[in-house]
């Protein structure tokens, strides 16, 4: 955060100065029972309503309830707020709240030099220190000297604030996160009203719980004011965002709403066949709540049944979707080819996570690109669309539906754990601006054959059961073109394999060219796809502001590529492809365009930081 001191409050002796900063990163970290996700979300909502731009990065433990106090049990929520347009939740926090030793241990390495550290001293007792693997209490040696440490007996003060309330100590204890939130609200000059309102609403039926939480929230704020904990307070002005109505949105939520929007715009009922898997399950949960939009969700017995049910629904004329993550996608691959062969529209959403095998289920990765491209028997190309940010999931969903229904083909939509659970403010689109996705089923008997095609898109006609006179059979055996009869004819097979590939290739005529941000040609191009957009944008902006000759381009369509991609790539001397994998897009680009693109891999289960990409740009320019 770059600061600018304002002397706002000079009366009281030790009263803090208020600095205006443009950008701040806060991380709340604690035990999984400490309510850190909720605390972070509240801070986010409040900041959103204040008008900041923001981005969030939640981090869950792999266990449901990992043993209390352990490193494995740490739950954290990072949020970045700014008075300008930002792209990532930030590389390193300016402020860290550590509710116990394990949280401190796990996060302290990331905290910026001279950053603000708030710790709940009550939890720094021997047992907890041991669980976190501390030999000495870090609050008592000088290991934290590089930070502005604020020790607070948060638990003790919470109980004190609730002394007079008739609640069991478990309930009292549970509100201590509000104390921390109060402190952070004070530090960053945020209003506490939004949270008070939210608490009243949430605990409408448990007034005492609401009251306790509010009391503690205020106590946290007051504690700071009274003890003058902080020498400096910060202010972050509203961002100069484009005019409009905004809401804060997580990727999985945007994706769900996008599918419902596509259902409305296409006039097709939405059917989701799914089997729970991290980090895709929330889409199932959210869509299960949209029955009032005519959505049916089917929790199948496994992934194979999930995708198969969707294929059945597509045959029946529904907007058919299946959602999963890597291991589940592997199981669906045989059936996806059935949709491909029968030329039925199907949306396969793959929310990528760390692999291979069970891998790192709660961590992010973007290493399923080649799986979705090639993970099926024989030549079986499908269009692939990738979302690049939480709100972009909405648009990616609409685009996937457009391609699937217009071209009668299964389409893969790629997202990942980072954008699925991360959030950002989203300027809500006008409904009328959304694409018209209306679909017409074939009803005319005259001249109908099951594999007759639209000469432009090569899409076959969609004739659904219940239509008199169009009775026909489809299936996974090779089909004779036009008639749709089973055919073992050699020439027909060759024709059909090429036709299916051609159908996907032609989509290139129907998607926008890739845009270069920066100069149209030059020394270095940073090419990205998916959730690396934020970090790349940040890094390239910064590099360009330093005068470096670097541009960037970001792919939304991974198959087919935009038509101009080859031209774009050839205009740069060097191409860097940051990927959270060993170089999957890189391989595709190299094969297609014979350009010496180089991958910049990071496979750590967490997103790229702006800084590391910036450094790689600098190295590349030097090297």
């Amino acid at each position, binding site marked *: 955060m770059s600061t600018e001191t304002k002397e706002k409050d000079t009366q009281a002796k030790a009263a803090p100065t208020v600095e205006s900063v443009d950008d701040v990163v806060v991380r709340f970290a604690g035990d999984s029972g400490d309510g850190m996700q909720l605390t972070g979300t509240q801070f986010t909502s409040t900041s959103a309503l204040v008008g900041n731009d923001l981005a969030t990065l939640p981090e869950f433990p792999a266990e449901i309830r990992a043993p209390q106090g352990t490193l494995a049990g740490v739950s954290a929520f990072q949020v970045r707020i700014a008075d300008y347009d930002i792209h990532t939740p930030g590389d390193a926090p300016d402020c860290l709240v550590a509710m116990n030793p394990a949280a401190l241990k796990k996060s302290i390495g990331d905290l910026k030099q001279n950053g603000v550290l708030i710790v709940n001293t009550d939890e720094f007792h021997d047992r907890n220190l041991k669980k976190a693997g501390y030999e000495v209490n870090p609050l008592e040696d000088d290991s934290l000297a590089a930070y502005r440490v604020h020790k607070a007996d948060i638990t003790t003060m919470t109980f004190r604030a609730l002394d007079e309330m008739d609640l069991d100590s478990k309930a009292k204890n549970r509100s201590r996160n509000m104390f921390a939130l109060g402190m952070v609200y004070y530090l960053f000059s945020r209003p506490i009203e939004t949270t008070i309102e939210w608490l009243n609403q949430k605990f409408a039926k448990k007034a005492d719980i609401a009251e306790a939480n509010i009391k503690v929230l205020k106590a946290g704020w007051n504690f700071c004011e009274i003890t003058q904990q902080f020498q400096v307070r910060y202010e972050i002005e509203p961002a100069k965002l484009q005019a409009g109505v905004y*809401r804060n949105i997580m990727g999985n939520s945007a994706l769900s*709403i996008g599918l419902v929007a596509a259902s409305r715009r296409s006039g097709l009922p939405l059917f989701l066949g799914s089997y729970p898997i991290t980090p895709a399950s929330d889409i199932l949960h959210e869509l299960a709540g*949209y029955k009032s939009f005519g959505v049916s969700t089917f929790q199948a017995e496994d992934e194979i*049944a999930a995708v198969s049910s969707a294929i059945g*629904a597509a045959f*029946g004329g529904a907007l058919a979707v299946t959602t999963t993550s890597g291991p589940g996608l592997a199981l669906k691959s045989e*059936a996806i080819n059935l949709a491909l062969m029968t030329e039925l529209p199907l949306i396969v959403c793959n929310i990528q996570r760390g692999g291979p095998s069970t891998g790192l289920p709660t961590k992010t990765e973007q290493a399923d690109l080649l799986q979705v491209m090639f993970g099926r028997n024989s030549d079986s190309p499908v269009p692939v669309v990738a979302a690049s940010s939480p709100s972009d999931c909405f648009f990616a969903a609409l685009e996937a539906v457009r391609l699937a229904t217009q071209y009668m083909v299964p389409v893969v939509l790629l997202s990942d754990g980072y954008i699925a659970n991360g959030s950002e403010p989203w300027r*809500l689109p006008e409904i009328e601006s959304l694409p018209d996705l209306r679909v017409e089923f074939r009803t005319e008997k005259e001249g109908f054959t099951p594999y007759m095609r639209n000469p432009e898109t090569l899409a076959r006609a969609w004739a659904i059961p219940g239509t008199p006179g169009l009775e026909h059979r489809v299936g996974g055996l090779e089909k004779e073109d036009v008639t749709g009869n089973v055919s073992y004819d050699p020439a027909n097979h060759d024709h059909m394999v090429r036709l299916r590939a051609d159908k996907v290739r032609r989509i290139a005529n129907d998607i926008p060219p890739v845009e270069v941000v920066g100069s149209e040609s030059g020394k270095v191009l940073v090419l990205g796809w998916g959730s690396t957009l934020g970090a790349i944008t940040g890094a390239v902006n910064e590099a360009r502001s330093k005068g470096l000759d670097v541009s960037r381009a970001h792919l939304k369509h991974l198959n087919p590529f935009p038509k101009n991609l080859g031209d774009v790539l050839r205009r740069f001397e060097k191409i860097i492809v940051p990927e959270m994998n060993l170089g999957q897009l890189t391989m595709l680009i190299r094969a297609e365009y014979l350009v010496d693109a180089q991958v910049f891999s990071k496979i750590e289960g967490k997103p790229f930081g702006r800084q590391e990409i910036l450094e790689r740009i600098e190295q590349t320019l030097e090297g």
Partner: protein
Amino acid sequence: MVTETTTLKKKDFQSDQEVRWCPGCGDYAILSAVQAVFPELGIPKENFVIVSGIGCSSRFPYYMNTYGFHTIHGRAPAVATGLKLTRPELSVWVVTGDGDGLSIGGNHLIHTLRRNVGLKILMFNNRIYGLTKGQYSPTSEVGKRTKSSPVGSLDAPFSPLSVALGAGATFVARSVDVFQPHLKATLKRAAEHEGTAFVEIYQNCNIFNDKAFSYVSDKEARSEDVVYIENGEPLLFGREKNKGLRLSDGEFEVVTLGEGGVTAEDCLKWDEARKNPALAFQLAQLDGGDFPTALGVLRCVDAPNYEQGVISQIRSEEESHGDATLQDLLYSGDTWEVG
């Protein structure tokens, strides 16, 4: 425009595709029975859909002039479920084999049955993998020598009806390819059932497992060794209907009427709608050996139908939030304006 269903004939359901089963295959008889029954169901032709997996039996849809989906191995119940949930007005029939339905597809089958999705599932049981040229299947008897079990298979077979009942099936029945009137009657009963109807059809594969069901279908056997179940009637069998099944200490025993004063009254009167499926389960287990083989409808109970439940949840949610627009959805949650 709805086809006049009353005028439908058997040949309306015959497609123009050449039938490609081996000459003599039991599948022909089943095809013929289905083509004969469909016109009698009062359902418009365009509302029939046949969904199959992979196997000889699964080529069935090609020969029916209805909508059809020849899916992939074992997955027909799942594909059909998705179709039925979104299009409950369709009459969706699943055709599967003992390998397709019980080997690779066993899981989808049992889950479809427990959910009680309104599908009619016809399992052509020939106790062999036909299409892949003769390996033993999950219904093959122990000791069977096949290409993949040259010294005899070791796997104890499934009893398909027992599996179905164990899964909570609401309708289970058994018939035989060549018993045309019985088969047609059974198919009609299946068609009438609201939930999942599971029909096992003993089917002769004359190429790889010829005469597997001769203990039931042989001239002598069909009148002596089969108990044809009639709801509400005692379990009697034999050419003279002089033998019966009686319960003793909870288990069936074969009795001869007249001997030791046994009368038809002593034999168990069959009730296909019992709450507890245990007696149907017991009857399903009888298949050859000292006991007669049971054919007909073993179980048929009313139970909530899955797709109706899905639809009514949607309807009631639509009613209570009936006027929700896309605008509402998008602009829900905490929003703020930048202006």
